[in-house]
């Protein structure tokens, strides 16, 4: 019965997918290590020594750590308080907040930073105008071009991570202990502090580490807010070293390896916190649960939540829309100041805009399609344990999580801009970067989906003579459709808003929207940037809505 001459196409597919995945992760990192050790003759540790002796580099590292610490702390505290309020209490309007937190989540941080320069620039910013108007003072209330400004903006767009982690953890905490505490006479706040809080401490710690690492890897926010104020972070320092003549590749490589090691270290710590999670009292869902009555505190709680989403979403979007339709953004919104000229200019005046929109969409679709396919195949191999070493594949699939975008890009730049691969200068190098960056998201999504599909159906098909590939195509995939679609959309969104890798990899032949925004930022054409930012936000928001419509679940529900 066995067709010896008929080669089963499954095995080559598994092997091909595995090798592709391994290459995506290993090649750029290998180049970084190799370049960082490259000396005049033979190997050298000189570059690493330079990191710890060069005053400018030490300062950049210190700034990065300070910013990440405070942004992480702020994001975790505010994110978890909001998570608790929304999932556990009877705060009014709480259902709206899931959507609003989602809106903060999908807003690219550099767009937020840009909008905040209009809100809190020390002289022309809205807040400072208002402050001077009210108090009659000549000074300013807030200055976004500062360490505090960077921390604040990063916090605004990373608290949703903590929010999600805490909400997920709280969903799993049984309410029996809380009820017991209430029966014993403790008031609600005391219960929250002495029962609920200890139970979610692992989630809090892990939320902190995650937002810390997220802040460490950001490029756009410090580029817009820190550099004008005269200080660097590790990411902006890497960018500057690469964008001046002559480039210091070796030093960039060493700095990248350092940043990478830092993230690996922190995330392995996070894993240890999460490892301790299996607390006996954290049980499955389906627990009967009554919302905690906040009493009079409902309204201050609501105010806090409104305040945060106003800062993260309402005000920035408002100022962007206003600027996009004004002749001069800082002038009052009068009829004379209203114009559609910016929209015309953005589309027809700058030759790069059309190209950028096209490339961004093309890259988004390619990343989504190839990425979701690859993620599905790999998740299938891992979940069905198709061959030995499948654990290694699972490891490779999540490994890019620890690689900051700018580090990945530096590695790709070294790997693919010389023989035998001349990818620099094409959109393919961006594609590889996006694919690598988004694989963990796609894999996690695909893995959850495929795990949920019973093996029996597949076995039935196999008994009927189908090879594995056919089974995957005809049985597993149709069942996994919703999950794979979600993976596609998530990867699409990730690709559309990517900046920190793109900024090193783009050329005039491969513009994308995020880079265009950063580039125009350096010319100060604020009204035009606002137009392009709105286009980008719409693109993302429409995708998110489409996804919720199609799959019926919220993208933040995907656990990191």
């Amino acid at each position, binding site marked *: 019965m066995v067709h010896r001459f008929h080669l089963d196409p499954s095995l080559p597919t598994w092997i091909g997918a595995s090798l592709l995945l391994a290459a995506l992760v290993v090649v750029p990192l290998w180049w970084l290590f190799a370049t960082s050790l490259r000396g005049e003759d033979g190997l050298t540790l000189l570059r690493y020594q330079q990191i710890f002796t060069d005053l*400018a580099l030490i*300062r950049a590292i210190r700034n990065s750590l300070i910013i990440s610490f405070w942004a992480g702390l702020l994001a975790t505290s505010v994110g978890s308080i909001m998570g608790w309020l929304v999932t556990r209490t009877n705060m009014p309007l709480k259902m709206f907040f899931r959507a609003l937190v989602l809106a903060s989540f999908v807003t690219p941080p550099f767009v937020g930073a840009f909008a905040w320069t209009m809100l809190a*620039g*020390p*002289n*022309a*910013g809205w807040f400072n105008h208002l402050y001077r108007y009210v108090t009659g003072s000549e000074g*300013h209330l807030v200055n976004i*071009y500062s360490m505090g400004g960077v921390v604040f903006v990063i916090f605004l767009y990373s608290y949703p991570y903590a929010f999600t982690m805490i909400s997920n953890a709280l969903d799993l905490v049984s309410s029996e202990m809380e009820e017991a505490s209430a029966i014993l006479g403790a008031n609600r706040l005391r219960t929250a502090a002495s029962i609920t809080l200890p139970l979610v401490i692992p989630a809090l710690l892990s939320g902190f580490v995650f937002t810390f690492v997220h802040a460490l890897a950001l490029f756009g926010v410090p580029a817009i807010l820190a*550099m*004008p*104020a*005269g*200080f*660097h972070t590790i990411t902006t320092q890497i960018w*500057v070293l*690469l*964008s*001046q*003549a*002559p*480039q210091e590749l070796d030093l960039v490589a060493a700095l990248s390896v350092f940043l990478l090691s830092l993230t690996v270290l922190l995330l392995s710590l996070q894993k240890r916190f999460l490892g301790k999670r299996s607390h006996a009292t954290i049980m499955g869902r389906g627990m009967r649960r009554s919302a905690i009555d906040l009493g009079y505190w409902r309204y201050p709680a609501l105010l806090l939540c409104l305040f945060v989403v106003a800062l993260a979403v309402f005000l920035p979007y408002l100022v962007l829309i206003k600027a996009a339709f004004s002749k*001069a*953004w*800082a002038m009052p919104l009068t009829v004379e100041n209203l114009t559609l000229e910016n929209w015309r200019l953005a589309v027809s*005046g*700058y*030759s*790069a805009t059309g190209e950028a929109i096209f490339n961004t969409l093309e890259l988004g679709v390619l990343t989504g399609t190839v990425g979701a396919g690859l993620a599905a195949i790999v998740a299938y191999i891992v979940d069905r344990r198709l061959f030995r070493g499948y654990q290694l594949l699972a490891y490779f699939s999540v490994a890019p999580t620890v690689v900051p975008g700018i580090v990945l890009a530096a590695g790709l730049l070294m790997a693919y*801009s*010389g*023989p035998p691969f*001349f990818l*620099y*200068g094409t959109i393919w190098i961006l594609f590889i970067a996006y694919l690598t960056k988004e694989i963990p998201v796609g894999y996690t999504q695909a893995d959850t989906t495929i795990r949920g599909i019973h093996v029996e159906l597949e076995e039935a098909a196999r008994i009927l003579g189908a090879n594995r590939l056919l089974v995957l195509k005809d049985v597993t995939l149709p069942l996994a459709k919703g999950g794979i679609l979600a993976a596609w959309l998530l990867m699409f969104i990730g690709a559309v808003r990517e900046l920190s890798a793109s900024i090193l990899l783009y*050329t*005039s*032949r491969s513009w994308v929207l995020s880079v265009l925004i950063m*580039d*125009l*930022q*350096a*010319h*100060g*054409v*604020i009204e035009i940037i606002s137009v392009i930012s709105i286009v980008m936000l719409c693109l993302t928001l429409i995708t998110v809505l489409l996804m919720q419509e199609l799959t019926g679940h919220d993208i933040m529900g995907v656990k990191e």
Partner: protein
Amino acid sequence: MTSAHPLRRFLAFVIVVLFFPVSAVGQEILADQAKKEGKVVWYTAMALEVAEKVANTFEKTYGIRVELTRSASERVVARVLQESQAGINNVDVIEISEAGDFTLLKQKGLLKIYRPRNYEKFPSAFLLDKEGYFHAWRATVAQPVYNTRLLPANAAPRSWKELTDPRWKDKELKVHYVSGAGTNVMAALTKIYGWEYYQNLRKNNPVIVQAASQGVNIVAAGERTILVEGNYYNTMRLKAKGNPVDVIFPTEGVVLVLSPAGIAQKAAHPNAATLFLEYMFSEKTQQMLVDATRLYVPHPNAKYPPGMSPLSQLKTLTVPVEELAKRQGEIKRMFSEIFGL
């Protein structure tokens, strides 16, 4: 893509080289060859709006597409170097506002000799390279710029020196060395006042911007009152649109910032590049730069509008190109040391 016979291409090349600078026929052949190449890739440090205008006019005249990338001068050079290391020959025409960097490109063998028509009649300040690898096709003067709504003209500072006055604390913008204006002014002012000048300026907490054009926009919006290294042409452009900005002519003199242009040695569209440079240096384009943007140009026939003093009547602080090239390392190092970037 176009597979013209090598011999024909060679002949065309010979014809172009031999006859083009002197004959209109040469010009026609060049335009034909350029059209076959289809496009020209231009890396520039010019304000984007103006660059788009120059590119669009060329497209309309010759039907050849201009692919435009605009960055700060230093970044344009970094990009050209990076691409050449990677074996990518993307750029055809390079044009920045930092003559010193062009010396570096020339030394690396990345430029091709090109001499515009009538170049012997250009003012000598614009002829930057004796061997003919690059010439300035435009110039502006760098000078402080202020917001006229926040600061009445009689209260505005009158010299570079006054900008270090504590009165301007938290009110100033300074341009980074990646910009041509930034480097040129730093080179000129440190010759008079030494680096102490910038150490004092630092005490005023200036916000650092990447380009003079960005700085002028920020001053126009009122986010800051004074831009230390503004430039004339960007300010006049915004002023003409009704923005509250104006320039200051400091008593020490304004700094002449020359912007050289050259053709990449390995240009993928060499004829289109030559045609584009020919167009850039033509009387019509040069007059357009003066009229539309208030730039200074080398063309001897250019007429300056009333209100724009000819260069010869301005007190200028000019740093020779060799000196700029030599002092680049020092300027970068000292800037980073003082301003932390």
